[in-house]
């Protein structure tokens, strides 16, 4: 297992190298260059000064030279400066934006799984019942709903309709201007702090969770049905085990194996795919960072964020495979 992990990690290197080349090339070939904005804001810049800036930024060199220089610095932990925020790109992306997205998508993932797995089990156990049909129908609705539409609807419901009808306050979007230091200095209580953050997070978490829930329910149902139809379940029932025991000890454990893999594979998609949700609710996480840095031609930040997503994807693929062996003793990697 250890040797397998090491081998997979080594195999990851060329894959990530190729991914970084592609991402870098696509960013370097983007229309316009980072100096465009400077040129517009400051019409007095002479061609000579622009040329100097170009040289200072290294934009006069061919793309492949720039790539290898970037790679050399990146391997030493230097991802360059953010042009629009004036801070180090690495600090900005990993220190500020990534934790927020981890919080958001982690919560959404937890909510989705906590609801979807029991519902999927229920639906599979009561196959062909009215409840099963209702759940299956709901899951179809769920994964046919585009995330941007759901986001807009929820935004409208909880900031306009509900407050108008019930007089409850509208749910806020964006980030609260509250920090942990406010709690330590005593300007807000601990629960007030949690409450404020929660009120800001409800809408984006709900959006992400509702969309994911549909597919998890479906996978859980299909996976459990597959197991329930197998011979060893019949054997377990035939020897007189209680149905509860058959279900939870024999069937569920096996049915959860593919779910573990799917969860591992879905994590990176959720991190990157939160672009739309974060945009709708003005939540400044990774997705919004990527979107904004592309618009602002802040390529150091975009490169840091995209490269990190690629690394995370590769890592979670590996974790999914390893977990697969952990939960299923029949699988041995050598």
């Amino acid at each position, binding site marked *: 297992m250890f040797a397998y992990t090491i081998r997979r990690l080594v195999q990851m290197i060329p*894959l*990530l190298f*190729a*991914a970084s080349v*592609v*991402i870098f090339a*696509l*960013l370097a*070939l*983007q*229309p*316009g260059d980072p100096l465009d904005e400077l040129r517009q804001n400051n019409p007095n810049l002479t061609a000579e000064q622009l040329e100097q800036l170009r040289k200072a930024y290294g934009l006069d060199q*061919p793309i*492949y*030279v720039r790539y*290898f*220089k970037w790679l050399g610095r990146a391997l030493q932990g230097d991802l360059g400066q953010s042009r629009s925020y004036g801070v180090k790109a690495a600090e900005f992306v990993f220190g500020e934006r990534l934790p927020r997205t981890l919080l958001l998508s982690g919560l959404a993932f937890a909510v989705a799984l906590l609801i979807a797995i029991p519902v999927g089990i229920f639906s599979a156990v009561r196959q062909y019942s009215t409840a099963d049909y209702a759940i299956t129908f709901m899951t*179809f*609705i769920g*994964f*046919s*709903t*585009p*995330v*941007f*539409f759901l986001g*807009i*609807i929820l*935004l*409208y419901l909880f*900031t*306009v309709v509900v407050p108008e009808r019930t007089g409850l306050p509208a749910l806020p979007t964006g980030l609260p201007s509250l920090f942990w230091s406010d709690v330590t200095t005593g300007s807000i209580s601990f629960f007030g702090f949690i409450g404020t953050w929660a009120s800001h997070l409800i809408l984006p978490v709900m959006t992400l969770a509702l969309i994911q829930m549909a597919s998890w329910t*479906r*996978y859980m149902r*299909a996976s459990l*049905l*597959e197991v329930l139809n197998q011979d060893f379940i019949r054997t377990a029932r035939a020897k007189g085990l209680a149905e509860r025991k058959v279900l939870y000890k024999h069937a569920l454990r096996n049915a959860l194996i593919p779910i573990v893999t799917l969860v591992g594979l879905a994590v*990176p*998609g959720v991190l*990157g*795919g939160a*672009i*739309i949700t974060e*945009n*709708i609710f003005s939540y400044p996480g990774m997705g919004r960072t*990527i*979107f904004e840095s*592309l618009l602002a031609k802040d390529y150091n930040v*975009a490169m840091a*964020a*995209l490269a990190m*997503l*690629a690394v995370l*994807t*590769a890592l979670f*693929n590996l974790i999914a495979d390893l977990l697969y062996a952990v939960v299923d003793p029949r699988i041995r990697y050598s």
Partner: protein
Amino acid sequence: MAIAAPKSSASADTAFGLFWRRFRKHRLAVASLVFIGLLILMAVFAPFIAPYSPTAQPTGEDLASKYFQGPSREHWLGTDDLGRDVLSRIIYGARVSLLVGFMAAISGVLLGTILGTLAGYFSGRPFRFYLGPLNRREGGWQPPLFVAWRVASWVLFYGLLLGAAQLVWTLGGDDIRAGLGGDWSFANVLSLVASSLAWAAIAWAAVWGLRGSFRLDLDIAISRVIDFMLTIPELPLLLVLSALLRDPGASVGQWIQGVFGESTSVFIIISILVIFGWTGSARLVRGAILSLREQEFTTAAQALGASEARVMFRHLVPNTIAPIIVNVTLGVGGAIVTEAALSFLGFGIQPPVATWGNMLTNAQEYIFSAPWLALAPGFMIFLTVLAFNYLGDGLRDALDPRSRL
């Protein structure tokens, strides 16, 4: 003593009849088929159905009252921020959504099927990719016109080597020159060492290339590309790619503009959806072909002297058609959502062309004052995708009764 022939209705005799009888049982799938049919009719006859032009803006007196009209008798779904009729834009938007959906799904699955077939069929039979000029022949599958390919591959091989040498020269050059000038800093020494190693490797490769050979298992190559596609984050890269292809300053952008004119952004969207959309069906088809090629009918076809292409596309691919059709159907829904998402973010199809996705972009800004602007396109996307998902489900049940999920 005659045994009565089993009774069969006329419709059960053909494969299509059999399929249709099974498909009909899935009520929602039939309803979806009808819905999609109506949608296609609506898209085709949009100019006759739409009450207004999708881009017509109001003129004349009292303009302010013509913007943001709520649903009324004249404008069933109201008007938008520029006073355009929302219903007409929805009807015209169906054209773009369906065009993008069908084109992207069909081309993506077609490409995936071809690559998946090649990968599955030639798995374990490496393609002799490179054979040095001084090498004697050796085994392995070789393409027709191998002599021409051999010469071309030498040119390619030594060309790449030259490129690598230039790269090493450019990267290390400055530092080494600075070092020779007496400034032996750590970075300069590092460059010298790295460059020397790189030069040694290039020299070795140049000598190896004379006699060596290089074989490539198409299956491994294609599977690696698929793994790679799974590593790169999809949605952000779609954004990057669409901005790049649309750039009128770049040669690609100019070429596309020249060829496609007004429909440039539609073409761009379709091509980037295809670039990311072929992997799923390629994996599916590859798996199917891997098992099919071991069956007797394949051996029989080969024994009868059928060419590789004939075995692949006449004998193997038709046997994978059921999952391919299901994949296309589900792919249309997926492509419609992705197009809408890209357009929603402003990286897709550009206004004034109406699409359901870019109608939502504007609607988001006015969600508090004019919510109907978001509801109409949102529901159309939702219903269309739901219909394609149900249709795919019904087709799967009817075509491939064994598969679940």
